[in-house]
């Protein structure tokens, strides 16, 4: 092989090593998920079979029927969807207008206000959870879904402002100005002209809100008490601790709880990465 050829492409050995390394990483990433999936499809006697088997024969959906169609699981699901939707409306509504105001207006204190808002990235949940619990009891919001919506929205707003500012700034201001010449108010121009063009940004924002609220445990656990107000992760935690661990139905509930996110991810990869990296930078 000449030097020129070697420069052009990797050798066969190198290719082999690359794929071997990727295969090992894939195994690491998938092992817990596949083992959980396997267990969730097993009949109860096979869950504790020795030696363990990977492919259940025959696979059964009984665990999914037990876990997912359980009345309680249904309620957790509905609760979670309510909180996701309410948090989405509240946090995106507030963040969208805040982001717009800071992109399109110049005013005293603009940088300072943004800095104060973004400084909340330094405030982790564990640092404020106890005062939030005490306040929610004082205000009569303890053990309500509303308390969760308020806290989640407040945590999401700074990240969403960060994320949406980028998308708003990318849309030429001349479009809003043209609408104003046609008689729109400033906010009207934003609503009618810019907002429809923000669809990719709103999608990324929606993904961020959905994943954050869906996966959150600490606040959901600390600010609610009754079974009727549990979120999905909290419900899974109680499944795990209440009745002694039944791994068949438990893994079924766990896998089922991942499914909506995995499906959305498959459909909206771009928005997912945008939302999650925005969220990671400012979360």
């Amino acid at each position, binding site marked *: 092989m000449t030097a020129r050829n070697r*420069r052009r492409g990797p050798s066969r050995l190198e290719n082999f090593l*690359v*794929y071997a390394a*990727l295969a090992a990483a*894939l195994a*690491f*990433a*998938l092992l*817990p*998920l596949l*083992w*959980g999936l396997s267990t969730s499809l097993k009949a109860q006697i096979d*869950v504790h*079979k020795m*030696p*363990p088997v990977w492919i259940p024969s025959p696979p059964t959906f009984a665990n999914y029927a037990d876990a997912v169609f359980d009345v309680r699981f249904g309620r957790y699901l509905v609760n979670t969807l309510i909180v996701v939707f309410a948090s989405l409306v509240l946090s995106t509504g*507030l963040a969208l*207008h*805040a982001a717009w*105001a*800071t992109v399109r207006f110049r*005013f005293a204190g*603009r940088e300072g206000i943004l800095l*104060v*808002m973004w400084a*909340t990235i*330094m*405030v*982790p*949940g*564990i*640092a*404020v*959870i*106890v*005062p*939030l619990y*005490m*306040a929610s009891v004082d205000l009569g919001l303890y053990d309500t879904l509303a308390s969760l919506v*308020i806290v989640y929205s*407040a945590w999401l*707003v700074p990240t969403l402002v960060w994320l949406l500012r980028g998308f708003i700034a990318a849309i030429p201001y001349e479009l809003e100005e043209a609408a104003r010449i046609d008689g729109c108010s400033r906010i009207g121009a934003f609503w009618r002209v810019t907002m429809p063009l923000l669809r990719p940004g709103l999608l990324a924002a929606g993904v961020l809100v959905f*994943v954050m609220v869906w*996966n*959150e*445990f*600490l606040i959901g656990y600390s600010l609610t008490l009754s079974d009727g107000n549990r979120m999905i*992760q909290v419900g*899974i935690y109680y499944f*795990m601790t209440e009745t002694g661990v039944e*791994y068949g139905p*438990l893994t079924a509930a*766990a896998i089922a709880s*991942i499914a909506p*996110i*995995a499906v959305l*991810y498959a459909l909206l990869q771009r928005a997912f*990465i945008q939302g999650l990296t925005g969220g*990671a*930078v400012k979360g």
Partner: protein
Amino acid sequence: MTAIARARMRILRPYLWLAPALVLVVAVSFWPLGYALLQSLHRSDYLDLGTYVGLENFSRFMLSEAGLERAWNSFVLVVGTLAISMPLGFGLALLLDRPIPGRNIVRTILILPWLVSNTVAALLWAWLLNAQFGPIAQALNGIGIAMPNVLTSPTWAMPALIVCNAWGAFPLVMVFLLSALQTIPKEVNEAARMDGAKRWQRFRHITFPLVRNTTLVTLVLTTLHCFNGVTIVLIMTGGGPFGATDVMALRVFEEGFKFHRMGIATAGATIIFAINVFFTVTYMRILKNEHGA
């Protein structure tokens, strides 16, 4: 409306659109910090502020023997998680930056652990590592090693937590670095290659300096996520056995919601917040350098 009133309205307008978001953020993030600081100086009587005790809660949280051990455990958990997730995420980003067939599907699958909640991650790892019915115990058994019950073993409980944390953390490192690597023009590396730079030299002197800042950012993000995390420890070991995996964040949670000693809990929370500030300020310095350079 008079002209003056209209002008005043025009000045106020941006503040009006900004105010609701700001009020919510201040009420839910800053107010509790202030209250935590106040409460941490008092011996609480459940939800009442209680009597002033100075810094007693801080010393009880931090300076007791168990407190120092918890700080050490937090440190080990964070460093262990970084030691796995950083090289793994970085290495995978380098591999996936190459034009190899199938890299999109591999990348898509490798991101999955990032999307799984800490609750479910902890549950799945606990079950995978089960010494009686798990496939890993079975495989070890096959080569004549009896697997201990890792989650109740003082030696193995912490490594198990580290592996679970690293599993959830490496995709973030990979995604951030991959996007940083893809902003490096191919010509830069090509030119260096023409000049006879070896692969390691190119990495050392060209690639790495260009993604250094991104690397540091992912380092800080992973550190904080792991340091502040309660869920995985709570579910996998509950801080046990015998405090072997008791970390600072978990203790704050337990002081508050198990023992209802709000003074000690808020003292711990204040310490954790201070550590977060330290790391975030470092993080902002890095970002500033990135934009300044």
